[in-house]
């Protein structure tokens, strides 16, 4: 019976092939990966570990990881990765890597208080730490070598400037995680430099229909909103749908990049995207740790190394489309 079902399924699968899109199209368009998968140096095989505050299945952190892995291959590094969105759990993960005596640590400081003690411990154990993404304000005080990332407030301010340039008057900032400090900083930064009025709305990021209907409801209740700013790439497309449903002419702009955002920028559905180049955050962190081990180098002179914000519009989107498809932009 199972076999019959399976046979039927496979049968229809073969009969029902799609001549457009799909994996075959991807394979046709496949190109060689950037790094050939061989180490470029002959330093010993050091082990670096990265611990982030990412939730499960987050596109952004996936890109950070692919940057880190690529650098690790090049630098002859064994690369380990773990994540947990709870500050307490994250610090325990870091502790477990200290116990394993790794040669370098990369951590995020989204919840600085929970991470303070364990970062100091790493320092005491002689393990160099580089902080990435969040925590630029406290990174140095905790004893990290360097911070690699975007300053969320500065990124927000860049958005405010861009909105002014585009003559926008009333914007809606869509936060998809209540209580995320970085998200608040982005919206607040944008509100600071934006000459128009800015409002916030919280949506349930794990529930796309809720994101859509909430934005729809907001646009219906306030016809004056001419810009919707989403804080993550997957939400930009949903915001565009919501605006369409609500009969609103609002321009959609977003933080972060993915394949759909690149395509939408090209066809004009989106105004602009602010990229903090997550690939660079992973890549640089591993590379800087290697440089520190190999050559005692420190970059940034005590100041954070900024990876963004880079404002991406229609003009740049075409070039980036293929990179977003392979998951490195």
């Amino acid at each position, binding site marked *: 019976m199972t076999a019959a079902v399976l046979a039927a399924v496979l049968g229809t699968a073969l009969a029902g092939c799609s001549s457009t899109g799909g994996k075959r199209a991807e394979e046709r368009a496949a190109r060689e990966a950037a790094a050939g998968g061989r180490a470029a140096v002959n330093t010993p095989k050091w082990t670096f570990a990265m611990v982030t505050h990412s939730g499960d299945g987050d596109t952004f952190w996936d890109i950070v990881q692919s940057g880190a892995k690529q650098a690790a291959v090049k630098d002859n590094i064994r690369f380990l990765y773990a994540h947990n969105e709870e500050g307490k759990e994250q610090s325990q993960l870091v502790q477990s890597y200290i116990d394993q005596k790794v040669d370098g640590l990369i951590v995020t400081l989204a919840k600085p208080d929970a991470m303070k003690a364990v970062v100091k411990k790493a320092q005491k154990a002689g393990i160099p730490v580089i902080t990435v993404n969040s925590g630029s304000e406290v990174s140095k005080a905790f004893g990290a070598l360097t911070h690699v990332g975007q300053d969320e407030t500065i990124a927000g301010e860049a958005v405010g400037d861009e909105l002014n340039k585009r003559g926008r008057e009333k914007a809606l900032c869509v936060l998809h995680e209540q209580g995320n400090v970085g998200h608040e900083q982005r919206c607040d930064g944008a509100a600071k430099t934006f000459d128009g009025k800015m409002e916030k709305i919280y949506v349930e990021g794990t529930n796309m229909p809720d994101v859509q209907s*909430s934005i729809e409801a907001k646009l219906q209740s306030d016809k004056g909103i001419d810009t919707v700013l989403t804080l993550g790439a997957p939400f930009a497309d949903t915001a565009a749908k919501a605006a369409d449903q609500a009969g609103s002419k609002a321009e959609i702009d977003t933080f972060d990049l993915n394949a759909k955002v690149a395509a939408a920028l090209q066809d004009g559905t989106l105004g602009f995207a602010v990229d903090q180049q997550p690939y660079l955050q992973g890549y640089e962190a591993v590379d800087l740790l290697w440089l520190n081990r190999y050559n005692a180098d420190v970059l940034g002179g005590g100041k954070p190394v900024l990876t963004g914000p880079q404002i991406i519009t229609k003009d740049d989107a075409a070039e980036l489309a293929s990179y977003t498809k392979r998951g490195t932009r």
Partner: protein
Amino acid sequence: MSAEAPPVEELASRQPVRGSLPRRLAGRPELGAVVGAVAVFVFFSIVADAFLQWSSFSTVLYASSTIGIMAVPVALLMIGGEFDLSTGVLVTSSALISSMFSYQMTANVWVGAGVSLLATLAIGFFNGYLLVRTNLPSFIITLGTFLILQGCNLGFTKLISDTVSTKTIADMEGFPSAHKVFASHLTIGDVEVQITVLWWFALVALATWILLRTRAGNWIFAVGGAKEAARAVGVPVERTKIGLYLGVALAAWISGQHLLFNYDVVQSGEGVGNELLYIIAAVIGGCLLTGGYGSAVGAAVGAFIFGMTNKGIVYAQWGADWFKFFLGAMLLLATLLNWWVRKRAEESK
């Protein structure tokens, strides 16, 4: 619950009372929920200017329908005395399977949707079968499935697509027709209504018919109210429970296909926490947490109350920071009103 077999008439009496109209109304589990829904509706009509537009109503209906589609089978399951914590991520699994099968096989997207239907039903069957074979609490079994599916959603997506979201299938064959079936909107007058609303209404009608007009409906009330007694009078308890889990899986498949064909790309981490919304809708709608009592219409009204409250707060333009507070307070008020009305109705019987 006593292990002794009560007379069959007593089992049957768990169904709504028949008789004169007021008496029948008073016996309906959804009576309180309807009063609550009217109250919420009137309230937001007064405090929110934009709430009374047709376009707003369509938005509220959409929000309600995406919860309501799942709340209906979840309510039936609860009437049958069981829980399912895996429903939220099962919806995501269903969407992921469709998308990845179509993409990887370069198959017509309908083939992927078919495979996904089989796989989703298999997961529902797994829940039900394990439950009736082991007699463990459904809470534990479906918690296990919930975590397994959460892991699989992420693990398989990463393994197969090498990223945490699926690739776009919008350019593949079959997509336009599938989009029509699962994610289009109809224009009625000058109002756009999402097709999920129709799916929702159809499921409510189907479930109500099963509950009130078929033998299987009697079985559901019986296994939820008094399992051993039901077994003693010849109700196929195991078949009924497995059937209920299959119903949940079927609705999860419909929701999952909507997610996929509406948003085209599926994020593998989505859906966590939604299982609670479905249970909340069923409970607001009058389903008892202990089983044996409730209705599909009630669950639909419960979803509608949730949708109205959730969006009404946005229409009312209340402070965004306090959103969850208002949501909780409004739901509590609606449920209290619901409880009060039902108590009054029962007293007057």
